């Protein structure tokens, strides 16, 4: 279903979706500005251009719902509720960071918002999501879990093992593949020989959606998550996105097989246009929103900057 066919959710929700996407975008744009000054000594995998996926999905999640994502943390982490302060401080390596400075960009945690730790080894988090869903089922609770991963992760055997086990035990987990058609610089055609929704469909209900359109994602994820919650069973959803930046670091991607149209493919522009058309946002209110977010980021940066580094003698703790 393409954007135009999708009815706008209510105004508050729409504005929330926009704001969340902008928070991710602007947060990462700030990273791009600051990174050359070496205040963040940790590799970053930016999410710019792919904001619709985490935002559209996480809009349907409660803080109790758990999520397990991978090295490309910032998008899903912010969308699931991690505070900018904690994330920025982690990038700065400070004790106030979400992982107290021990994790770095790729390893973030926030138990209060259902983030029980992200992994920079591709694949494994998928199984953890299934385990968390199993726990919910075992404990007779009603939260669900999301295994959030890229197309590259579907190469890994643990993805298929996880699909199988989740289907066998019927646990409430959403498998969310953010398919940017790239694994590092490899195009999907070189690393994966199947259409994902087709292959995953042998195990469970599976579908695919335009992941550059937050309304489409919001709708498809809403449907998928409702099924996970109500039927207490696994569902697979693929969001087809485009990676704008290089796999790692702060430069724009320039792979010939990854042509990006920064106008047409921009999830933020797309939504802003719909909202303008609906008369719910104007250039001015958008500008205000952006400025508000900038302030929030200023605050996060200041917070990080002011925070202490861990002490050397705290090296061997929690082991």
């Amino acid at each position, binding site marked *: 279903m393409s954007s135009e066919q999708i009815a706008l959710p209510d105004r508050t929700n729409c504005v929330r979706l926009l704001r969340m996407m902008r928070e991710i975008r602007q947060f990462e744009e700030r990273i791009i500005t600051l990174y050359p000054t070496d205040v963040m000594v940790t590799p970053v995998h930016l999410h710019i251009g792919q904001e619709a996926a985490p935002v559209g999905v996480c809009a349907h999640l409660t803080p109790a719902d758990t999520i397990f994502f991978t090295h490309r943390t910032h998008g899903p982490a912010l969308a699931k509720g991690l505070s900018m302060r904690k994330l920025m401080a982690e990038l700065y390596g400070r004790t106030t960071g979400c992982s*107290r400075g021990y994790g770095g960009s790729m390893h973030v945690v926030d138990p209060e918002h259902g983030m029980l*730790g992200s992994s920079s080894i591709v694949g494994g988090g998928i199984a953890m999501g*299934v385990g*968390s869903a199993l726990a919910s089922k075992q404990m007779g609770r009603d939260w669900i879990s999301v295994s959030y991963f890229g197309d590259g992760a579907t190469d890994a055997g643990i993805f298929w093992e996880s699909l199988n086990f989740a289907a066998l035990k019927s646990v409430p987990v959403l498998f969310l593949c953010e398919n940017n058609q790239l694994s590092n610089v490899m195009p999907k055609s070189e690393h994966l020989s199947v259409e994902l929704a087709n292959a995953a469909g042998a195990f469970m209900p599976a579908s695919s959606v335009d992941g550059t359109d937050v309304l489409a994602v919001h709708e498809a994820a809403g449907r998928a998550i409702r099924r996970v919650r109500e039927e207490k069973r696994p569902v697979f959803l693929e969001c087809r996105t485009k990676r704008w930046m290089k796999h790692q670091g702060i430069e724009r991607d320039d792979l010939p097989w990854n042509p990006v149209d920064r106008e047409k493919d921009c999830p933020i522009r797309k939504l802003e246009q719909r909202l303008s058309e609906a008369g719910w946002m104007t250039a001015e209110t958008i500008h205000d929103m952006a400025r508000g977010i900038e302030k929030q980021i200023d605050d996060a940066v200041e917070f990080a900057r002011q925070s202490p580094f861990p002490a050397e003698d705290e090296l061997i703790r929690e082991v």
Partner: protein
Amino acid sequence: MPWSRITQSHAAHDGDRIITYKEAIGEAIDQAMEYDPRVFAIGLDANDKFGVFGTMLNLTHKERVIGTPISENAMTGVALGAALSGLRPIMIHLRVDFMMVAMDQIVNYVAKWRYMFQGQVKVPLVIRAVIGRGWGSGAQHSGTLQSLFTHIPGLKVMMPSSPYDVKGLFLAAVKDDYPVIFIEHRWLYKNTGHVPKEMYCLPIGKGHIVRQGNRLTVVATSIAVIDTLAACKDNDLDVEVLDPRTLKPLDEELILQSVAKTGRLLVVDYDFPRCGFASEVCALVAEKGFQYLRGPVQRLTFPECSMPASGVLEKAFYPSSARIATRIREILK
């Protein structure tokens, strides 16, 4: 679930009831599951009629035993995810060799999670690994591998040798908020000993002098403790036998104290020799207890090769109480 109410027992062998090692581990699992509804068991063939070599046949809460496909890597992730979400999983492998399939999860995830996130999430996960001996199974089905796990920071490693220890350490492992690799030698299962009926936890990281002696300290693990005791008894050797019980954390002090008394060290560990647990204990003593040593430290381990299948070769491969006795006599000569 106030596990803190469970007694911390330091007594060596209390209770007047005698049961087998197998019964002791089974009882520990059953009691842990009864005591704490968050405890559940998961593993390939864990729920079948063989009940993990009979250790899980008579559980009160069979419904909390989850069988799995042959997907050891994902299953470890599943157990970890469940542990982070509020459960206390007991993961089970019928042979330690199968854990190699899950090494990514064990090394990169389970071991690192608590440190990487500085205790904001805890990992109350026990991984039972059954080990054994060949009987013609060959190289892929006869591993022990305790040294691999001991090498990795973030994992605790237990290898109890007696029914009393296996119950007390297992409960301590389930109670603990760190991941524990719990290694059980199947040839110990029929051994008997005094085991209290009530729940108790042994302290993690405390070794145990199982035999007093003056001329040599033998540090032995798991079934090697039994073989060493037999060697000493049959040959009336004046040897101190020390069972560390947990390979990590290691009771360094107890080992050093014993060597301070005897002046000599032999480590008997049934695992590959290089970078093994025997190497570790020897290095420890030569580093921190050098002044006590009156002669070279020594190791008795598997030879530097994989396990062969044929009986003759298996016999040559595996250490035994006879071989331990010979080595001790050489040292004491």
